[in-house]
Every structure is written in structure tokens, then in C-alpha cells.
């Protein structure tokens, strides 16, 4: 399902125009992005939890250039599906 299909589905279910549904979906995406950007996790009902994890710096080797390098630390989004969603998709 892509974003357009989600928007149509939501618009039909909630008696609203597609443009309105799209605006609300964008507000939702915006809220989640800001929250994760501030290193704040959250959980969504029926789906699972999201949080931010910090990856330490690490050493790496490029076999083509035959060079060693140190990769900087970085932050990534981590998603844990709900226990019953996990069971359901098994």
C-alpha cells in the first residue's frame, strides 16, 4: 500500500476530502520525525515502538583501496514490532 492508497482509505473512512487526509498524514509524519530528531521514542498502538539508537564509531577496511578507516558514530531509528504483530505475521 502506498501513501496515495492510505490517503484514499483514510478519507473514505473518516468522511473527509483526500486533501484533508493528506494534510493530517503529513502532520503525523512531521510529528514523528521531530520527535525522533529530539531523540524521543514513542509507541504506536497495534504496530510497535520506535526509538533512537547510537552506533559507536568503528574500524573498517576498504579492500579495493587497501586502506583502513574509522567510521564515525551515528544515530539510527530502531523499530520493534508489537509482540502480537510479530506473532500475526509469522
Amino acid at each position, binding site marked *: *500500500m*502506498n*501513501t496515495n492508497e*492510505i490517503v484514499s*482509505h*483514510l478519507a473514505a473512512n473518516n468522511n473527509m476530502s483526500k486533501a*484533508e*487526509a493528506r*494534510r*493530517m498524514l*503529513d*502532520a*503525523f*509524519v*512531521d*510529528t*514523528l*520525525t*521531530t*520527535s*525522533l*530528531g529530539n*531523540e*524521543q*521514542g*514513542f*509507541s*504506536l*498502538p*497495534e*504496530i*510497535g515502538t*520506535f*526509538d*533512537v539508537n*547510537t552506533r*559507536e*564509531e*568503528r*574500524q573498517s*577496511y576498504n579492500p579495493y583501496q*587497501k*586502506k*583502513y*578507516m*574509522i*567510521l*564515525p*558514530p*551515528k*544515530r*539510527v*531509528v530502531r*523499530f520493534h*514490532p508489537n509482540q502480537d*504483530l*510479530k506473532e*500475526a*505475521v*509469522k
Partner: protein
Amino acid sequence: MSKITFDEIIESVARESDKSKSFTRAFLKDLTKAIRSELENGEKVNIAGLGKFELENVAEKEGYNPQTDERMTIPAHHKVVFKPYKNLRETVNAPYAHLEPQLIDEDSIDSRDEDAEEQQAETATHPPVNRVFNVAKMPGRPADKSLRNETLSDWSLWISAGAGVAGLAIVAAGAWLFFRRNK
């Protein structure tokens, strides 16, 4: 790490889109239900600007129960993965975005390693801090992890150094043979 509640998300979305809270709650519940039912039907879900949810195959593998030491086979199954899109990845990594990989030569690898060992001997109670990137003052950086992480990275360092030396030896032998034949 702090968390925000679903109610706070509802409030923020309601404020941004000028809708009532109860309407927003119904809307978001609908959205999460749609995502879930789609995943249960084995479909993937793209949400523009955020990321996509999809199912991944996990092959059957041997596992064991660490409490009873009992061996068992974990059957092949599907799992849900979330892949964030570029916008979200970059927003989350913003504090570290200016950092680039740094090239180092093999000599400095050895010295880094020795430094780590010396520090370990000096401060047995504290894990050695031997970082190239100074991120200690960056916001949200967790305190240094246990000693285990450091020894692990030392191991990988030795292994990669060993692999490098072995590779060089093979290349040298090949070159020698090549020149001998061409004489």
C-alpha cells in the same frame, strides 16, 4: 531516552491540522489499523516522508534455550522491518552529520592498540577511552559502554590487521613469481 505518549502525538497532529482531538484520535487509530492489516496480509506499507514497513524472510536456524541448554530449531518465519526514508534518517543523525570517515594507516592501528592496552593496565577499573571522534560533548551521547565493547573492537582490529598482512604477502608472492617467469 525519553518517550512521548500516543496522546501527545494526537495533540500535536490535532494542533497542526486544526482538527479536534477526538477526530484526530479516530483518524490515527484508523491509520495504525490500516498499516497493521496490510502487514498481516503480507503487503508492504509506504508512508511518504517517514519510511516503509515490510516483511522479511527469516530462514530456519538452530537455536538453544540459554536457561535449559536445550537445542531447538527455530522455524522459518517472517518479521516486520521498518526502513526509514532519507529525510528521517538525516533528521535523526543530524548531530553527527558533519563527521566523515577518517583514513588511518597500519602503523597507527598498532599504536592505537598499544595505547589501549597501556590504558587498560593503568586504569583497570575504568574502561579505556580511545576514540578518534570527540563526541563526548555532543547532546544525547550515552556514557561509555562496558569494557566488553572495547575488547571486542580490539579483536576485530587484530583480525583486520592480520587479514591485511596476509593479503600483502599473497600479492608479493604473486609479483615475485610473475617477474621470475618473465625473465
